[in-house]
């Protein structure tokens, strides 16, 4: 069976673990009819089972805290060709990627950059315009001036630029590889019906768009709602409705210019691009 390594990358709280949880919950029975679906149960699935249990009961998927990444191997099948693929994804904690901004690069990241053929890049930048982001930063950043000492920390960097820096690092290691950029929490994004997500990125995060378009030839943007809704806004009725959607495999979704419940689309795009 062909093995495919995809680097799942993103800063803290970008939605990496939630995506894995939703992917496993939706695809594990192999009955989704999606572009990719599980071909068989892996020999061991404690880790992803635990994640998807939280997803099923509408609880936040616990953020990864392990110092070393957990390698998730999923035996998948491409529905249209029947081809079997052993899909390998690392579940890194986001802080490991954030440390790159601090010039402290984990050897695990380097190893995954070397062996991966594509990048699933998760971002959680909300739907704020750049100006609004600046204001938020101003409000939340406490002055760090002590006499004549001012210290800039990675967290003080504009969130969009933090992502550009991570992309820049990945590009330096992996070159012009296929990359799917997924904006998480899409259920709370401010976009107009039918709007192309790439146009949304141009309007809301031009510095990311400019960097990506100048460096990667095989890229695609997605909006993604792995949870299907903001849990904090759910009451019992809406929670039941969301759970009901899960049984129909219509809870998690991706968006390009319309909603699709096939959350394997970004992975399939990467796999196709690797050829």
């Amino acid at each position: 069976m062909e093995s495919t390594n995809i680097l799942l990358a993103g800063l803290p709280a970008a939605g990496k673990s939630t995506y894995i949880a939703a992917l496993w919950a939706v695809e594990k029975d192999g009955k989704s009819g999606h572009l990719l679906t599980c071909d068989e149960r892996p020999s061991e699935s404690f880790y992803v089972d635990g994640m998807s249990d939280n997803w099923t009961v509408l609880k936040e998927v616990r953020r990864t805290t392990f110092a070393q990444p957990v390698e998730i191997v999923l035996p998948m099948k491409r529905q249209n060709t029947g081809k079997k693929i052993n899909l390998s994804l690392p579940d890194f904690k986001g802080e490991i990627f954030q440390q790159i901004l601090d010039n402290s690069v984990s050897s695990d990241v380097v190893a995954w950059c070397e062996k991966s053929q594509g990048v699933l890049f998760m971002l959680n930048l909300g739907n704020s315009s750049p100006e609004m982001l600046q204001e938020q930063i101003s409000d939340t950043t406490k002055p760090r001036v002590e006499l004549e000492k001012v210290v800039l920390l990675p967290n003080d960097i504009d969130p969009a630029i933090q992502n550009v820096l991570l992309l820049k690092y990945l590009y330096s290691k992996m070159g012009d590889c296929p990359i799917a950029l997924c904006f998480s929490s899409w259920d709370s994004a401010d976009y107009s019906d039918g709007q192309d997500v790439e146009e949304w990125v141009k309007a809301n995060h031009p510095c990311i768009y400019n960097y990506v378009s100048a460096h990667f030839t095989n890229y695609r943007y997605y909006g993604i709602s792995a949870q299907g809704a903001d849990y904090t806004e759910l009451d019992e009725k809406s929670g039941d409705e969301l759970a009901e959607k899960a049984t129909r495999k219509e809870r998690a979704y991706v968006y390009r210019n319309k909603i699709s419940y096939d959350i394997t689309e970004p992975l399939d795009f990467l796999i196709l691009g690797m050829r």
Partner: protein
Amino acid sequence: MIENMGEQVEDIINIITGTDSTSGTGTNTNAKVNGQLLFCDAKNQSELNDFIDSERPKLVALVGFANYGKSTFIGALYELLIQNLNYSGYSFVDSDTYVGFERRVFLRRINDEDTSDTKRNVLGENDILNLVLRSKEGKIHQVILSDKAGETYLKYTSSDDEVKDDRVLENADLIVFFVDAEVDTQKLADHILIAEKYEGLLTRLKAQHKITALTSYIMVYTKIDKVVSDERRKKLADRKKKLSAIFTENIGKEPDQIYEVNSKDLNHNTLNQVFEKIISPLTSVEAAKELDWVKMEIDNQK
């Protein structure tokens, strides 16, 4: 022994000021003062080679004393570039010094009234920033900006030794001299001090052949929003003439242009005109100029 003591004293001064005027290898000094530099931080002039590509970059030096508004100015340019898909016909597609820009914006964000260059200098902030820009036609060009802390230029006014190691000014395609319009239009004594400081700086730069009649330069009066009353406007007009005469006399030519800007208003027309002048690519004539600074860097590495 005395030499060693001298070196130690210089080391201490360098650590305090965050500069390393002797070797230009400010990185280690910075690390001592500021901890580790971040990924894509600003560079120092000894790292100019990092930016050499097949195309000659445009080198722009931003010159001004402490609190003249250089950081706010450069921060405004950066904000406009990251917030717009296309700014003045160019897309900002890359930089090896994103964090260097972020530092300048950060200082402005945390406290508008307390962003002195002194703090930057204590931080040991490097001065070289780069912008990689793409035109609508898809042509890529690079602009390198030198944004030294104001204290560095203050040292230049008093010491030839401080000036001689500067490799940026003599090779700059454009020098932007900043003047604080708010201070310049207050007491006459304040204006005289500004004029004296610039005269001192220009005299030494000229003596060391860092500026010549071939130097392309502009003057930028910042904080123009603080110059409101008719009386202040009149003072500004008079004093601008006097100061530009000092520049003309020392450099041997008039400034290409004199601008008045408010760097806190990103929609300010004149501000955008200056930015356009800074980020536009070299003309074919300029681009054909010998790569003196590149050669010099390569020779130094041999």
